[in-house]
């Protein structure tokens, strides 16, 4: 199972509106041995998890070897993911990878054809589904708002369905949620007249209205301008600061960069790999990597044969070197200086999520083509030849 829940500490529970209900879920979860179910029923069919150090955290969501197909088209194949409590987990993958279907399994809107889904340790498609859905706040790729109703009526509808009622308390909560996402000023307007950004803000307000513990965000910045997208991502970060668990789906790597506490890369309905970005980077780039930049790029080519250099790749004035030890850097600088090479910069390379994503994809492609044999493998440098 690709386990994004490893390597993090269990977060604290915030104080949302229905403590009794949540306590009941927690007790039920404690009674359920998720781990034994996972291993006995499904084994470890998926790719290996990138395990990190630290204590095992509580998983709010566990999808275990789930298959799902629609009209003969397989949307999920043995998908296994775990979402850690009070963290932002990002489901990263191209369009059609199965991200939305995974969210639908989590709320119990769909039932897997095979495999198991546990949310708070319970089956969302079973009798506990209502209780689980009450603890979930969902923002869909399309905002799913009623255009003919006002913003307030949309929120009121959600408030009533999620059991907040219709009284003054519910109205206060509506105002607070709308204010939190900067849409209070437009609450009396008909949603049909809203811009895409306003609709997303209202959808976010609706999703947090009942103060859920688990937020499920499916491409929440879809269709937004960069400024609004940044604002929304900031709001997502604020959600975990308030103790919520967030699972966000996106195909935009930049969106996940800096936001994700854990990443699960999915493709073709299968989880490829999961873990903290830093752990994944260490896995795919196990050796120290340094970028050298010189005024004349070709002057750096001599480093490809230098002792301790295990990988070399140059693009223009910058060469990326993989070293057997960080201690090699001063030696290499001395060597270049002695040869009269004008060095502009020496910077440790930190792979971006984009680099990571393409390294993972490249590895999968290699495994697909070679049937699991030799290939690019972990450590392959993205974007060039070795």
């Amino acid at each position, binding site marked *: 199972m690709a386990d994004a829940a490893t390597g993090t500490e269990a977060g604290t529970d915030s104080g949302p509106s229905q403590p009794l209900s949540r306590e009941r879920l927690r007790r039920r979860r404690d009674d359920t041995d998720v781990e034994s179910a996972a291993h006995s029923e499904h084994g470890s069919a998926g790719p290996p998890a990138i395990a990190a150090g630290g204590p095992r955290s509580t998983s709010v969501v566990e999808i275990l070897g789930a298959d799902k197909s629609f009209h003969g088209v397989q949307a999920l194949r043995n998908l296994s993911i775990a979402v850690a409590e009070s963290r932002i987990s990002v489901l990263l993958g191209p369009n059609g990878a199965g991200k939305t279907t995974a969210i639908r399994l989590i709320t119990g809107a769909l039932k897997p054809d095979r495999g198991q889904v546990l949310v708070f340790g319970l089956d969302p498609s079973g009798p506990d589904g209502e209780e689980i859905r009450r603890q979930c706040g*969902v923002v*869909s790729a*399309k*905002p799913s708002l009623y255009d003919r109703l006002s913003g307030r009526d949309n929120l009121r509808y959600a408030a*009533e369905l*999620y059991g907040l009622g219709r009284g003054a308390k519910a109205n206060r909560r509506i105002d607070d949620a709308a204010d939190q996402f900067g849409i209070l000023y437009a609450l009396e307007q008909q949603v049909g007249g809203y811009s895409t950004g306003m609709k997303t803000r209202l959808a976010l307000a609706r999703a947090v209205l009942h103060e859920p513990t688990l937020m499920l965000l499916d491409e929440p910045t879809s269709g937004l301008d960069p400024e609004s997208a940044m604002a929304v991502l900031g709001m997502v970060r604020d959600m975990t600061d308030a103790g919520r668990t967030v699972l966000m789906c996106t195909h935009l790597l930049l969106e996940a960069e800096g936001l994700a506490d854990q990443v699960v890369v999915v493709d073709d309905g299968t989880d490829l790999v999961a873990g903290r970005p830093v752990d994944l980077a260490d896995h795919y780039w196990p050796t120290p990597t340094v970028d050298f930049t010189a005024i004349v790029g070709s002057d750096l080519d001599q480093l490809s044969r230098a002792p301790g250099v295990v990988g070399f790749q140059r693009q223009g004035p910058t060469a990326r070197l993989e070293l057997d030890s960080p201690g090699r850097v001063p030696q290499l600088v001395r060597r270049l200086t002695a040869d009269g090479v004008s060095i502009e910069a020496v910077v440790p390379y930190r792979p971006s999520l984009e680099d990571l994503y393409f390294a993972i994809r490249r590895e999968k492609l290699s495994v697909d083509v070679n049937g699991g044999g030799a290939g690019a493998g972990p450590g392959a440098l993205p974007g060039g030849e070795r």
Partner: protein
Amino acid sequence: MRLSDRPPTNWGRVVTVARTDLRQLIQARDFWLPMSLLGAAFFVVVPTILLLTITQIGSVDVMNRVSETLDVLPASAQSQIEGSSPEGKTGYALAVFLFAPVAVIVPLTISTAVGAATIVGERERGTGEFLAHSPADAREIYLGKLAASLIPGYFTVVVGFTCYSVIVNLLVGPSVGRWFFPTPQWWVMIAWVLPPFLALCLSLVLRLSARVSSTAAAQQASGLISLPLIMIAYSQATGVLFGQGYLPVVVGATAWVLALMSLRRGVRSVTRSRLLGVAN
């Protein structure tokens, strides 16, 4: 999930779904304006013109033609006709036996139009996703949608027949010597016979709405379903009005049994996967 595993129905949520659907309907002027015109035509305009023609103008030619038509009424119906003058008797017969059953068509048409769009509409607008993820049980959503489709139709019955009663009593009442409409048979018809026919029609239309891929397809297909039902409702309404004794009660009871059976089956048609539009 077995039925016994299901949590009890949360009627508050049923009311919420129904109220929200009705609120949207009120906002949809492009829907209720033509439907109001349809109702006005059947309940107000046509009866007013015809009854005025008979009772006020008193055209001999028109009277003769209508009287010939009244001869085909069964004896049980003819014995009920009241009125002190030929114009009054003709007006009474027209008001009670000929116009009113036609108006059954209006509520059924309105409810069918609302019901056909209700579930597939959620899917088309993408709001089905919101409902599918919500704590509301599929059964509660179904019942809410059913109520939201039933209420406009029955509201039309109440408002339409109130207007119709006023018109009939004002125009024909003086000839009969009293305000006579609704007659006892009409009370039974409005309160006992019409509601189950509306429910029966809607149970089929909602099932259809949950399955088809677009509102246009739902409207087309619901026409095929509702048209025969409208004809049956019309004929039953006529029979109820012509008949006496227990007949209206029996017709209503049979319609209720059929409606409840159909509604029970219809509950299963709304599922979360259908709200999402991904049902296999």
